[in-house]
């Protein structure tokens, strides 16, 4: 079987993309079923992944370039879930838009395949290919809308993404030049064997890698595209960008920095860089979010700040052992928590904005009266983003901050905690407007069934894992233990 079945989930998602395109051509009258075909593809992928978990059959294939371990499995689940939610949240918008429906779903699935491939990639070239596989369709999707703003967003994202990719590629090339290999553990071994004399080159390579991944993570100073693209891109796509590519960037960053660049003389540097970037991202993201009047821009800056929280965990993983497990599993927990929470928030925003035809926060006034379900769902997700119990966001923050305390990054935790107060200001500001404001019209409206399913699922995740975080925590721990040697 030379390992091709290890790529089963990715392949089934891609096959689903093809089926969606063909089905549209063959049965143009049955467009309503397209999203369900896409969902079926994702379900197949998830079941395929589950079958390995059941068998406990973990392996490294394709000459060590692709690995199937608990870590990859964790992220495959996350990406399948994120994509499924995005598809559910897109149905209304796509139907209303009316054109090129099958292409939209096919592109979303292609992104998903790329992200899933990234989860198991353990080789620089594979990582780059997977990253591009997930990025290129995202550029197209960002420009999917009919208006000029969307085209602008797509083009901007494409050009800046190309810059970031090229930086990443330079970094990888340098790394290959120094070590003579592209496989992560072998890079680590080569650096161990005498890389210290090439420190300057390695630092340059490291910096370029940070820039490349930082762009996808959307952290300062690589975040400038975020508000423009979030605001311009269709909202379901913005939701996808805010969760999917961010999670993927962290997934691969943990692997690259810990598995390949874990040598002491490098890790002390990148740990400090990540800590500083985390502090700056949290602070800038939050402060700029405060003054936004457009909810999508606000969520854009908030996602920058949240990426800072993720980075707190990344800064804490420089030491192997318990600190690594805490920090890395903290990031994984945060990824899952953030996926539920931010998607939930975006789903509600999609539904509300479509209805009121505005993204202005002021226009959300009195939403509690016109659509209590959406208002409650959005409020709940915003509370989780703030990090107030009993929501999963609280646990994620607590876990990451604890890891940082263990890694003697107390100053960073202080900044992080202060920032979570600042963030309460604008997150709860939206809640206040929705619950305490007077609605423009008294007319009530309901969410469509697909939106209702997506919002219920995400909000239930936020609450359920907020009360019983145990399963999620142990899954995250199991996932990172395989990396900790």
């Amino acid at each position: 079987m030379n390992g091709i079945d290890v790529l089963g989930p990715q392949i089934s998602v891609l096959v689903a993309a093809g089926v969606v395109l063909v089905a549209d051509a063959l049965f143009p009258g049955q467009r309503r079923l397209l999203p369900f075909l896409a969902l079926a593809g994702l379900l197949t992928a998830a079941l395929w992944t589950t079958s390995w978990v059941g068998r406990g059959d973990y392996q490294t294939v394709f000459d060590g370039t692709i690995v199937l371990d608990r870590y990859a499995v964790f992220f495959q689940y996350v990406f399948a879930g994120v994509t499924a939610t995005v598809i559910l949240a897109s149905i209304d918008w796509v139907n209303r838009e009316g054109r090129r429906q099958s292409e939209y779903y096919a592109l979303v699935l292609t992104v998903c395949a790329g992200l899933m491939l990234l989860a198991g990639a353990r080789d620089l070239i594979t990582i780059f290919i997977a990253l591009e596989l997930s990025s290129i369709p995202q550029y197209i999707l960002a420009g999917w809308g009919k208006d000029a703003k969307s085209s602008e967003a797509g083009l901007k994202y494409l050009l800046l993404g190309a810059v970031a990719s090229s930086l990443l590629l330079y970094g990888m090339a340098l790394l290959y030049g120094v070590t003579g290999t592209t496989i992560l553990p072998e890079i680590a071994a080569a650096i161990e064997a005498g890389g210290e004399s090439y420190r300057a080159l390695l630092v340059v390579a490291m910096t370029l890698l940070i820039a490349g991944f930082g762009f996808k993570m959307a952290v300062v100073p690589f975040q400038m595209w975020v508000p423009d693209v979030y605001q311009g891109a269709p909202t379901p796509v913005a939701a996808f960008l805010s969760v999917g590519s961010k999670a993927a960037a962290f997934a691969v960053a943990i692997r690259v920095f810990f598995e390949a660049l874990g040598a002491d003389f490098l890790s002390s540097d990148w740990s400090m860089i990540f800590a500083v970037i985390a502090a700056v991202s949290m602070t800038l993201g939050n402060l700029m979010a405060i003054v936004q009047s457009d909810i999508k821009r606000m969520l854009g800056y908030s996602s920058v700040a949240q990426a800072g929280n993720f980075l707190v965990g990344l800064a804490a993983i420089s030491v192997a052992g318990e600190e690594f497990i805490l920090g890395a599993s903290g990031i994984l927990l945060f990824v899952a928590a953030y996926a539920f929470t931010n998607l939930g928030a975006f789903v509600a925003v999609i539904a509300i904005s479509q209805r009121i035809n505005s993204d202005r926060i002021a226009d959300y006034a009195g939403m509690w009266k016109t659509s209590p379900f959406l208002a409650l769902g959005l409020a709940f997700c915003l509370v989780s983003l703030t990090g107030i119990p009993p929501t999963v966001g609280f646990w994620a923050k607590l876990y990451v901050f604890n890891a940082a305390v263990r890694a003697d990054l107390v100053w960073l935790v202080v900044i992080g905690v202060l920032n979570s107060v600042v963030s309460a200001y604008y997150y709860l500001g939206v809640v206040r407007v929705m619950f305490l404001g007077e609605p423009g019209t008294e007319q009530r409206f309901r969410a469509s069934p697909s939106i209702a399913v997506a919002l219920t699922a995400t909000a239930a995740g936020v609450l359920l894992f907020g009360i019983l975080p145990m399963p999620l925590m142990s899954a995250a721990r199991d996932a990172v233990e395989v990396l900790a040697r």
Partner: protein
Amino acid sequence: MLFLAAEPSAALTPTIDQAVLWAIMGCPLAAWGLIALYLRKLPAIAGYAAILGIGAAMLLSYVTLFNVIDASGGVAQYTREWFTAGDLTVPIGVRVDGLTAVMLVVVTTVAFLVQVYSTGYMQGDPGYGRYFAHMCLFTTSMLGLVLADNLFQMFIFWELVGLCSYLLIGFWFHKPSAAAAAKKAFIVTRIGDLGLLAALLLVWTRAGTFDVTAIQEWAASGEAKSALVTLFALGLFAGAAGKSAQFPLHVWLPDAMEGPTPVSALIHAATMVAAGVYLVARFFPVFEASPDAADVVAWVGAITAILAATMALVQTDLKRVLAYSTVSQLGYMMLSLGALGYVAAIFHLFTHAFFKALLFLGSGSVNHATNTFDMQKMGGLRKHMPVTYWTFVIGSLSLAGIFPLAGFWSKDEILLDAWRHDRALWAIGAVVAFMTAFYMFRAIFLTFHGTYRGGEPVDHHDPDNHFHGDPAHPHESPWAMKAPLLALAIPSIAAGWFAYDHMFKDFIEAALPHEGHHGSSFEIGIAVSSTIIALAGIGTAYVIYIRRWVDSSSIRATFAPFALVFERKYFLDDLYEGLFVRNIFYRGWCRLLETVDRRIVDGVVNGIGQVGRAASSRLRAVQVGEVQSYGLGVAAGVIIIFLAVIVANPL
């Protein structure tokens, strides 16, 4: 299920079934669920559901109290593992001892009476059902906080309490002042919560446990470095200072008076604001182990007590007098805890809850008759509302510390502890006692004596106004409101008598892991002196506001600078909001960043584009320009990171 034995110092363990303890939390929670799901649109039943749920919790609390009394205040704890992840083990459990039992009784009794009162006070409000739902949820959170056996659980309920109070203060959300007050309360208390969160992380990483008993022993054993214990204690106190409105975080409480008056009676007199005092008392051994932290607590308490008392002197709004009085009395309790007077602080918390709730409800009753809280529009109400008047007088006498009412006993104990600990603290306490007696009787004379000044006419054009009756002809309130006043008058008189024969002291002290002197009982010298001080305060008010030997406005004119400082709340609000939040933070910092982000980075090209290009070409120009500057930013970021590494860690 794990059953932990009681402390060695407690001879007996209460035999109360843990199901009862969970049910105390469960009853109001069930009422909340019922109201929130089904009864929001059925106001007639919603109020009764709340009364029933909280009433059941009250009965169970009394059962618990008597059970704990039988066990001489011993500790019973029921813990199980909530979940474990890695080295994080979070327990879930309940703990009952003398302190818990007293808090349970205070919270449920006041909550129950406030619900009864609310059925009258909130009659006809369009948010009637929602109101009772919030009240039930709040009561649940507060009981959960009191019953928690570990810091973690406490923290969760602590946050829930904060969230509920946000909802209740902002209950009349269409009033901008109410919405602003709710936000202020939430943000300010959250600043304090940061300290609590820091303490939580600290104790987790350093002591490895959340359990109350284990933390108490960890602090007392001397294993930990004293600086660490001090840090932990100060973190706890920061949280407590936020919730209990201690200087400099006291600013939210007076504004919180925008909520309905029964809410103020419940959460700003008896429960939520007492949570901070409770937290410090719960971890009292930690403060004992750290004299520095205890001194901070004592002095912050003393400063709060006297600042708030001075501000209460000049208020013209009856409810705000009570608000500042509450802040002042909470400062008193903190002072006592800092002076290592554990028993006295809890005793004062206990008595204060009753007479302050009584006073708040009394002010609500006055408002019900006059449609205002402005004392300049009242006067002479004694004749029209005898029940309100007499109960208000009882509450005020108790607060002023007149023998043999409840406040006398508890205040005396605090002053005695302060006297023994530090004379300066006693002196502040005595001055505050004088001011307390003065401002309460000033309020009584302005409100109930003299001639009626007409109240606030009802504005019938205001859709938010639900006032019934005629303010020009004030009337006594209905029985639903009078009965709780009368019921609260009883403990306001008698709650202090539990001091007899060290009853309260022994009961409360058993909750601490180590025997020791945690409070004094009675000393005739202190008792006489404080009575004289209180009577002097009342007498001063009498000669100014009844006899009018001195004109109150001429006093104000003489001390104009002081009065201005008091009236403007020591300019703290101006400092916080005007300077920090609005100017420095919002206008300055955030706008600057926004400007850098939008204008300098991409605005230049935007601006050129806007000047005169056709839409299509403009789009292209804007895009390309912005993208270039963004790309420049990325490149700059790379270079900065590289240089930073090289500088910090030369090759």
